[in-house]
């Protein structure tokens, strides 16, 4: 029943080629294990896909390590595939080659997501969970221009709410990272004057430049960035990770201002909205086919758009004579990606990612087809968008992203000059004022219903947008300030200084006078 077609093909091929296959091959062509390294940005969902396809008999090993390592390992033929947020750059930061060293490959988009800024900021003992920042403020924070949480720019982003005087400690990645590359690309495009002055040149980098003498902390891997910020010593820290890491850790993220003036969180919806503006290189002859140009994403003026959204890519080996490839490995790659692009996308939201729009899934299938072009024995029958088990897709209009259409509008309190809203971030749940998403049915006992943009089914969205104010922290700004430095205490310390100065001037003279008087008194006694 299963894979009979492929077994038959294999048998035919075997006969034609005259290769003596062992008897086992007539049962079912086995998959062969495939191995990969690369991005930690997309690792959380990739690991779940790997667990899922085990039921199909596919063995996939993925060990992360950062996008830069992934691209290098792929070039060195150490792996069957790699995952990277950015394409090969030609030359890397140290002037060494960042190419595939002649290994043939294609870019295959696998998942979308938002690069989130997670932070620890406490007012007294209470953690701030609804911080809002504009792009410019973020750029200035990560280039050491804004170094204290009480900076007026931060207060302005938060509609006048001033945070305590506490130094900002940016946490960056120390390893070669696609997350860093995405973030610096955005800074380079959106805030060139700030970024380039700091970086010393233009363009992106995978290794975040750290200036000596700054408070900036660097850590290897997304897990460690998260650990550092979550730790007790993390108060005042802010760093960048894929949204899923914040959700996993139950930790707040910054709501970033978009071009429409709304401060939004990188939920699957807001990311999907933003990525409708991604310009995908659709020139099939280009080596950069399917890579992303995100300029339109950064500036999209939809109120629901999360500006620092992007896609992650698999490097797929397409050479017919690829040294590491065999029919079984190509088949595993093709079916692993078939699962990931179709069914696998349905769980993107639950893990803090956003599913791919149909046009990219379609283009992804074109890339998978190149495996068959390299090796005709690869079986791709019935693996297409139509059989894709993903109700997000609109079969009539490939370019439509239903997720983006269903995305709720952000609440008005998240608008520039309003609010701030009180709800917690880092929960993966969208926020909105939209009455359509409100809990009409709550009283009836049934959870409120809405159309789940992922499954397209009517599902309860109790986790949804409704009570924006209801979930709020009572009032996040309890007016306790940290003891680190309190402006109000400057005056008393000033007086202490005055007293000390006076003492410094007067005491020696007074002591000398007293001493002399005592001597004189003794002398008179004698």
């Amino acid at each position, binding site marked *: 029943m299963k894979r009979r077609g492929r077994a038959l093909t294999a048998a035919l091929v075997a006969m034609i080629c005259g290769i003596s296959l*062992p008897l*086992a091959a007539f049962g079912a062509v*086995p998959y*062969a*294990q495939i191995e*990969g*390294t690369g991005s930690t940005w997309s690792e959380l969902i990739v690991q779940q896909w790997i*667990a899922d*396809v085990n*039921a*199909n008999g596919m*063995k996939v090993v993925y060990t992360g390590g950062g996008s830069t390592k992934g691209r290098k390992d792929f070039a060195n033929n*150490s*792996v069957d595939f790699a995952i990277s947020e950015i394409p090969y750059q030609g030359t890397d930061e140290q002037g060494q080659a960042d190419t595939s060293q002649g290994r043939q490959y294609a870019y295959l988009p696998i998942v979308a997501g938002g690069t989130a800024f997670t932070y620890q900021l406490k007012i007294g003992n209470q953690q701030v969970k609804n911080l809002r920042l504009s792009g410019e403020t973020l750029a200035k924070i990560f280039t050491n221009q804004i170094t204290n949480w009480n900076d007026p720019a931060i207060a302005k982003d938060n*509609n006048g709410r001033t945070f*305590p005087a506490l130094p900002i400690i940016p946490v960056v990645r*120390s390893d070669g990272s696609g997350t860093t590359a995405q973030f610096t690309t955005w800074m380079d495009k959106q805030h060139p004057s700030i970024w380039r002055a700091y970086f010393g040149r233009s363009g992106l980098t995978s290794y975040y430049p750290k200036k*000596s003498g700054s408070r900036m*902390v*660097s*850590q290897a891997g997304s*897990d460690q960035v*998260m650990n*550092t910020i*979550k*730790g007790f*010593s*993390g108060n005042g820290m802010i760093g960048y990770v894929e949204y899923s890491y914040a959700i*996993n850790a*139950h930790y707040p993220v910054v709501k970033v201002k978009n071009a429409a003036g709304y401060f939004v969180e990188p939920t699957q919806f807001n990311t999907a909205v933003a990525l409708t503006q991604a310009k995908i290189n659709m020139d099939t002859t280009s080596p950069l086919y399917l890579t992303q140009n995100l300029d339109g994403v950064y500036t999209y003026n939809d109120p629901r758009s999360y500006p620092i959204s992007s896609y992650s890519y698999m490097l797929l080996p397409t050479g017919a004579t690829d*040294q*590491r490839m065999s029919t*079984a*490995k190509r088949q595993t790659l093709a*079916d692993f990606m078939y699962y990931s692009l179709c*069914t696998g996308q349905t769980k993107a939201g*639950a893990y803090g990612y956003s599913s791919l729009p149909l046009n990219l899934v379609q283009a992804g299938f074109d890339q998978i087809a190149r495996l068959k072009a390299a090796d005709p024995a690869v079986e791709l029958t019935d693996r297409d968008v139509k*059989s894709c088990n993903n109700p997000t897709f609109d079969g009539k209009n490939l370019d439509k992203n239903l997720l983006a259409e269903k995305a709720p509008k952000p609440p008005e*309190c998240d608008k520039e000059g309003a609010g*701030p*809203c009180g709800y917690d971030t880092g929960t993966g749940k969208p926020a909105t*004022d939209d*009455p359509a998403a*409100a*809990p009409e049915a709550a009283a009836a*006992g*049934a*959870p409120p219903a809405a159309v789940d943009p992922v499954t397209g089914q009517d599902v309860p969205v*109790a*986790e949804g947008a409704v*009570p924006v104010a*209801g979930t709020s922290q*009572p*009032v996040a700004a309890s*007016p306790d*300030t940290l003891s680190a430095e309190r*402006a109000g*205490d400057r005056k*008393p310390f000033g007086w202490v200084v*005055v007293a000390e100065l006076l003492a410094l001037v007067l005491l020696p003279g007074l002591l000398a006078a007293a001493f002399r008087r005592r001597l004189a008194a003794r002398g008179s006694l004698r």
Partner: protein
Amino acid sequence: MKRSLTRLVLVALVVGASASTGVTAPATADRPQPVTPRAVAAGDAWSRTQSMERELVAADGTTTAISDPATGKPWQVTVTADHTRNLRGRERVGITWSGAQPSGGRANDPFGPGGMNQEYPVVVLQCRGTGDAVKPETCWTSSFGQRSQVSRSASDATWTEDLHALAADTAKVTSAVGDVPGADKCPNVDRTGLLYTRLVPFVSAKGQVFPACDAKTMPPEAASDAALPANEIAAYTDGDGKGSVQFEVRTDVENESLGCNKQVACSIVVIPIVGISCEAGSTAVEKDLTVVERSCRRTGQFAPGSSNITNVGADQAVSPALWWAQSNWRNRFVIPVTFGDPPDTCDIVDSRAPTGFYGSELLAQAALQWAPAYCLNKKRFKFQHNQMPDQAGFSLMASGGGAAALVSSEYEAEGDPVGYAPVALTGFGIGYIIDRPGNAGEYTNLRLNARLLAKLLTQSYTGSSFGAAHPGMEQNPWAITKDPEFAALNPGLTDEALEAGATLLSLSNSSDVIRQVTAYVASDKAATDFVKGKADPWGMRVNPSYRKIKLPREEWPLLDDFVPKAGTECKAKNPSTYFNDLAAPVSTLRKIAEALLDAWPNVQTRCDTDLSVTPPIYKLGRTERQHYGDRFMLGIVSLGDAQRYGLRTAGLETRAGRYVAPSTETMSAAVKVAQPKGRRGPFEMDMAELRKAGDAYPGTMVVYAAARLQNLAAEDAAKVAQFIRIATTEGQHAGSGNGQLPGGFVPISDAGATRPLFDRAQAVARAIEKQKVPAAPAEAGPATVNPGTAAAAPVGDPAAAAPAAGPAGAPEAVTMPPTQAVSSQWSGRLLPVLLLLGLVFAVVSAVSRVVLFRSRR
């Protein structure tokens, strides 16, 4: 029939994450026997003894034999394999040997190309074929350098002197003559006749010949530094002639070119390296021997038991690189192994949408085996286990995002009542990989108590001189290996302090596993006293940052903030919180298991300066893999992972002096202590009771399928009920097949100790199916049930509740009070007032003195 099978399975235990230990209580008569799934199928072990020696032939034809100095006779090597039949891909076969020549120059990483610079190791390989069909050409190596010698000088051409070489090979094979592919295929082979080359091609299962003259002419699976590590190893023999490895076998799924499966027979080949036997020398005068003749007669530069930490070259004649040379190959042990049927797998083009269950990673290994039993059966729904923190899984379920959650403890229901059905009995273990000093083999009997765990968790070991500067911890040992309490429990281990010995690799996110670990710590008086600040008998104190931390808890925080002042330039330029870098918890248990498997601590204290570029580049992050022979690492693992990867787990103290390791008996004993909560709630295992029982394993945990008892769509409710019923019957049959229960889990059955779990599961399945349980707090047990939405307002906050009441109440911004200064209002004035007062008194005193002086006069 089914019933009796279940019972049989009960007897045939599955757990025993540590194959070696059950309860390690000192000499108790009732010590339960550890059982592993493999021990059941007895009779598939393998053992042989062979004798071997090395001969050096002099010019006059006399032979000098290098043999066992203890007996003066050839080495009598005995090789044993613990099981050989019906293997699965990546299964580990225990290979042990005795009577071999002691090894020297231990490699840091003996796998693949890393193991080449050792002397007298035992090479273990997987080869296609059995008996005489096994040739070097069918044996797998992951790099060409492990099989071929390409363009070597005379001093590295010792194989040309091989006394036992076949007639065809006695002719010195240089690149000019012999069977070497052309320059188009093998450009790196010297063809001038100056250098020596010997290729050992690899022949794939399909008959394709790979010349193996460089990395490009190797099979597709061959790669150094690949994501899947090499399985071939040049293993170390200790001073007593003994050694052991856990050899991971590969099927055609993992290694298609090697191509082992049920039909294609394969072997594990064990080759004790005794060195190349050399043919007659050209002259009797030793110093006049040719370079290659002298090279061939070398006997090694490393002493037995030594290590080769800097990976310098070894004497080729006694190195594993020439395992294929007749002198070594003739001493091979060929252990035939058979592979089982690969389990049936689900069709990738199946159009049914999967139903996700969200939560506990403890179930991961079971879910991997269970899933195909659902998708292969059209009458069942398509089950998928989506791993995430228990809490996240539960709230996804409670809010309607998932049909069911998989958790191990009770959570507060956010709306509808929730039923908990036990579906698996498993737990956590403290996994370890520890080498005994002096290359004396692995330590297999680790014992830990609650206070030692408390010391590790609270980061009270200082790691190094950097951490030793932490205030309040001056008297604390650098690592657990320096702790007298640990040394007393585990004698004979190294007393060197490694940074990895200061930490227990743990989870960064919330998890029921952390709750259980900390509950164990909290149940112990000595441990809680330590946490509260009381010094242990040797003067060690808790890290002040963790003093009086509340236990138990489901998330372990990183509380230290100490940044060392001293250190290298790199550390000065990149200051970081030292104890956070030591602990460096990760987000999944699987990552911990893999770190243990690789003996690669997740300690993030590496700080190297690369001065070759200006400005210098700092390389920060994870420390290096640990060296074989010097491994010491501890981590929290799931028992399923421990069993799957062959990790050892520690015995934990229950009653004083009694150490209990996971096994069917000890985990069943723990279930006896469990008390059910409510009618559909989870079981509560009181840790104090459990420890009092003595023979119960404290890491025992039950995984529940938790689902709403109301307002769950009928379709989903039916799926969850089906899952519970299948999981508690078919899913509890021990085995490695589809739908069966893997190692690391104790079968739940309707008889014996696990019966309450079974009965509860069936009752909850019925309740979930019916969806009629009213939302009463007493029913499902949650203390507070907030009716309404998941995101209900905090009770007693009318302002917040109001907007949620209806659609009309659009959310509003929280009103922000102006942030006020909290500095004291009067402190600013106090000082000037005091100064003024002082001045006034000074004037008064001066005046009064003058007045008094005058009046006295």
